[in-house]
């Protein structure tokens, strides 16, 4: 006993780590915004149920912070005080006015929206600051090497924050339409995004796991959020059970990797793996990273770990599906790239065949299974599985850098573009779901093009982009991925990918055809008359307009001039800070 005590006194004081606020700025800001919303909802009772959200508050909440930060960067870079100051001032006044008015009128919902939008934009602005630091000083790690600040983390964070902003807009519109109470859903979405941001920059397997759990739990809650629809509850439960199981698998993988390499820090793991790779195989390590692959394969919805995807995508509230498709996929692929391409680079000959199989299976099964669906959300769910396959191509060839634009950059670019395409498509689907979020059958889309030509055109754009039609960003994304595959000698993957894209195109065309079909048409498959359009009108309010307009602009812009984003993706390929 005495000896033990003596030992205890000899232990040095644990040094408190330096907190690098810039490194963890984005998740902290988002989490603060989430807390503020929760507190607000708890403290201010009253007219929170009314969901009053004037258009000017929407604009003030979104554009105000954008102006503030644009003005600030303008100021820092060019030192033009007058113009930048004016822009900042106008933005600040707009955002504050929205917030103050909302609070003064006890419009909790409006205030929550303004806080969420400002928080997301501000987190993105901190991301831009990080990007500038990384570009000038190089990548580094912070918080005892648990957090990486590098181009890769910032790029993935950017995708997540983009999805969050669009998601918040869609979610706001959805809550208002469905008449659900309270702004808590917005807070939960921000918390989920917080977890995702942590995961994007996680440099330690434990941090990866914690972040995974944070955002997964948020997603379980959000999936089950629609208490009017039993499918939503069912999907939430299903997602929770399978998700918890996959998290356990992932955690077991972490444990085994720790056992084999003696560390959970990705840089140490990478060094240990390199030693193992030269000295022969290690069973525990193999099983460990196999389990990690299964756990992450579940999150990215790769076949054969995709079973939950159609049910959850269909059952979840549509804005949550949009957020899930765009952000979860990006962040899970981010972790996959960092762990496998970064840390397990030494074992690439062991994991590449597995990823090859996952990619082929995902592309083939995703595209083929989508054909037989009649529910649009299910179709898009299966198509998201196929898209996971395309990104997996990028992962598979990421270690074989031969061309100037490698697999990692291609995968990152694809994730960014897929986020916009899928959020856009699900956003349009959300509008078309009508009050109740139920009208998701292909037949419900009959005659849409005549009644809502703009909405039909937008959905067509997002679907054609997902099919990879040129002059949309989807084509450039496919070009990048398949070019990386060919440059690595993986002709088969490129060919299977292109053929699967053709099969998937059939699915998108089915939706397009339905929209451009006349109301009185008969369903060709069954011969029954198509159901008449629901009496309830479509709600297309300002937040959904903003979200769909922004997504469409991005899809077209990067389809015609993709250079800037391709550059960013290429600069974001340093996977392990500090090595």
């Amino acid at each position, binding site marked *: 006993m005495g000896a033990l005590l003596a030992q205890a006194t000899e232990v040095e004081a644990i040094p408190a780590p330096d907190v690098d606020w810039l490194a963890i700025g984005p998740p902290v800001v988002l989490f603060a915004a989430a807390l503020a919303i929760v507190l607000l909802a708890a403290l201010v009772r009253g007219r929170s149920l009314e969901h009053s959200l004037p258009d000017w508050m929407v604009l003030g909440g979104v554009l105000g912070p954008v102006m503030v930060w644009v003005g600030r960067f303008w100021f820092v870079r060019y030192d033009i005080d007058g113009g930048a100051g004016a822009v900042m001032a106008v933005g600040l006044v707009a955002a504050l006015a929205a917030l103050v008015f909302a609070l003064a009128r006890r419009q909790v919902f409006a205030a929550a929206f303004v806080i969420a939008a400002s928080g997301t934009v501000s987190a993105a602005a901190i991301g831009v600051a990080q990007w500038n630091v990384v570009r000038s000083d190089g990548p580094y790690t912070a918080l005892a090497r648990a957090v990486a600040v590098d181009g890769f983390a910032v790029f993935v964070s950017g995708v997540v924050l983009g999805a969050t902003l669009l998601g918040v807009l869609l979610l706001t519109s959805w809550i208002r339409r469905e008449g659900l109470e309270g702004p808590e859903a917005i807070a939960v979405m921000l918390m989920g995004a917080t977890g995702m941001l942590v995961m994007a920059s996680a440099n330690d397997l434990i941090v990866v796991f914690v972040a995974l759990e944070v955002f997964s739990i948020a997603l379980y809650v959000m999936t089950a959020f629609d208490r009017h629809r039993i499918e939503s509850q069912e999907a939430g439960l299903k997602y929770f059970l399978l998700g918890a199981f996959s998290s356990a698998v992932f955690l077991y993988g972490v444990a085994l990797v720790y056992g084999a390499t003696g560390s959970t820090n990705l840089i140490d793991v990478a060094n240990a793996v390199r030693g193992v790779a030269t000295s022969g195989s290690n069973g525990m390590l193999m099983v460990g990273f196999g389990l990690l692959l299964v756990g992450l394969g579940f999150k990215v919805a790769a076949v054969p770990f995709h079973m939950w995807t159609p049910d959850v995508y269909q059952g979840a509230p549509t804005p949550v599906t949009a957020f899930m498709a765009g952000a979860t996929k990006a962040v899970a692929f981010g972790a996959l790239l960092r762990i496998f391409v970064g840390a397990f680079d030494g074992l690439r000959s062991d994991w590449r065949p597995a990823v090859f199989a996952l990619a082929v299976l995902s592309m083939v099964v995703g595209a083929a299974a989508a054909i037989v669906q009649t529910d649009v959300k299910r179709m898009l769910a299966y198509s998201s599985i196929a898209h996971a396959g395309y990104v997996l191509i990028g992962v598979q060839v990421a270690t074989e850098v031969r061309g100037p634009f490698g697999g990692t950059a291609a995968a990152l670019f694809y994730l960014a573009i897929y986020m916009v395409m899928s959020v856009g498509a699900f956003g349009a689907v959300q509008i078309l779901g009508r009050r109740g979020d139920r009208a998701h059958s292909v037949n419900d889309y009959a005659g849409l093009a005549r009644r809502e030509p703009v909405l039909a055109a937008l959905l067509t754009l997002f679907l054609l982009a997902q099919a990879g039609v040129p002059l949309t960003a989807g084509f450039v994304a496919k070009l990048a991925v398949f*070019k990386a595959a060919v440059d690595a000698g993986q002709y088969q993957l490129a060919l299977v990918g292109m053929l699967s894209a053709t099969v998937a195109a059939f699915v998108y065309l089915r939706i397009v055809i339905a929209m451009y079909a006349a109301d009185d048409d008969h369903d060709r498959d069954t011969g029954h008359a198509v159901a008449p359009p629901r009496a309830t009108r479509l709600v297309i309010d300002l937040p959904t307009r903003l979200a769909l307009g922004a997504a469409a602009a991005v899809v077209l812009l990067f389809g015609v001039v993709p250079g800037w984003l391709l550059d960013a993706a290429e600069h974001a390929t340093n996977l392990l800070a500090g090595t």
Partner: protein
Amino acid sequence: MTLFASAVPTSALSTGAVSTSAVSSGVGDFPLLTFLIVLPLVGAVLTLCTPARRTEWAKAAGFVTALATLGMALWMLADFDGHAHGYQYEVQHDWIGNLGVHFTLGVDGISLFMVVLTAVLIPIGLLASVHEPNFKQFTVWMLVLEASVIGVFVALDLIVFFVFFELVLVPMYFLIAGWGHGNNRYAATKFFLYTMAGSAFLFVGILTSAYLFTKAGHPLTFDVRDLTAWLAEPGNVSTRTARLLFVAFSVSFAVKVPLFPLHTWLPDAHTEAPTAGSVVLAGVLLKMGTYGFLRFAVPMFPKAAQYFAPVLLTLAVIGILYGAIVATMQPDLKRLIAYSSVAHLGFVVMGTFALTTQGLQGGLFTMVSHGLTTSALFLLVGMLYERRHTRTISDFGGLSKSVPVLSGLFLAATFASIGLPGFSGFVGEFASLLGTFVTRRWWAVTATAGVILAAVYLLWAFQRVFTGEPQGDNAALRDISGRELATVVPLLALSLYLGFFPKPVFDRMELAVEDLMAHIETTTGYAEPDTPTPEAVTPDAGSTGGHDEGGAGGDE
């Protein structure tokens, strides 16, 4: 051009020929080709922005754009220098730098007439469709189609080519699905998916070609001239790789042409498409496939092209005979013409893979001629459909009594399509057969039967539709209107003109074809057998030629 000349010394098609400067002639720095693509797109946007109630504004915007584009294309045709090697009116901009894609455009004797044909057919298609419902959107899609088709023919960067090649599907899809008849959505989807599946191979082939080029230490590029020069050079690519790549390119183009086993999308798409859709589909879209063979598959992999030539020739000849026989059996007039396209395009592919100057020229000329004659036939069938709301041959009869002018024009178009001497169809098919006869005698002899069959199915159809006494609805029909005349007559007049004076066309395509042959000969060591000079192809000289009784005899 200068930008690339510094990076890679050889220019594709001037390897064997005298390497004169390929800089554009007399146009200064005006980016004509960019304008030919951008103008219809701008017009499409303008048309889209016209208010829904003022349909005449949309019409005006559409026609002005289409005619302006036509004017530019005709100006290019007049200004084109037939004595300059290589590409003219070149444009080059950086596009997707990270992926090595440049926006490179240029036109030569092979693509020139396709561009002009596109510019001719779009205003005619619009004029033929003014009574279509929702004409505004129809115009928008037609203009987008025009831009993308012209883009296909002038792109000199393989990715840019692929972009336009795929982009064509979108407007065509909407034209068929939105304004077609009957089972049009099925046909539109089938068209889209067939072509897209073919493009999958093309895409991988393009990426692989560029990858092999960079692996050999060259800077990343998709420029067709650099890639052609390097890939065709013996020893740079293994025989097996070259053959695989040739097959990858060919599958995609064969779907588009369409060659025999891959043709099943065509009758559906043609039959269900609106008239203007069929016109553009037959007039220029099918030529994207044969153009792809001429511009990419053959020059990039000349040895593989030679190796596979018997296969493609056989498929082409099967297409000629099969298309003709199936056309004979069709109860639907439009479907009949659709199958006749399979036969006509067979002549183009046959001429191409004969790998002789004559055959190539004949194939190219048939591409132009078929665009004129088949478009005229589709327009006339469209008029019949507008009057009777049927295309079934047995529903018609005796129309020459009720609509004499229309039936006269139909007869003229029939003769033009059969290839009666005096019409352009004869010149092209004859040259194509002649060129094939020199190297591949039996294929040419077999294909000649197709010429006779063409007379059988078209004249028989004409007989059933137009001769006899009109019964029932057929008796009281409105004859052709002035607007309808304005759509058909120019096409038939052009066909007639080119039938008698094909020289202006041959003059402009001659050098490009000779350079292509020279390129094939220098890279493969193959020597083209002696053939008569192109002048011998004109109808009057052709009938006095020595060993061509087979070709000429079939036409009588």
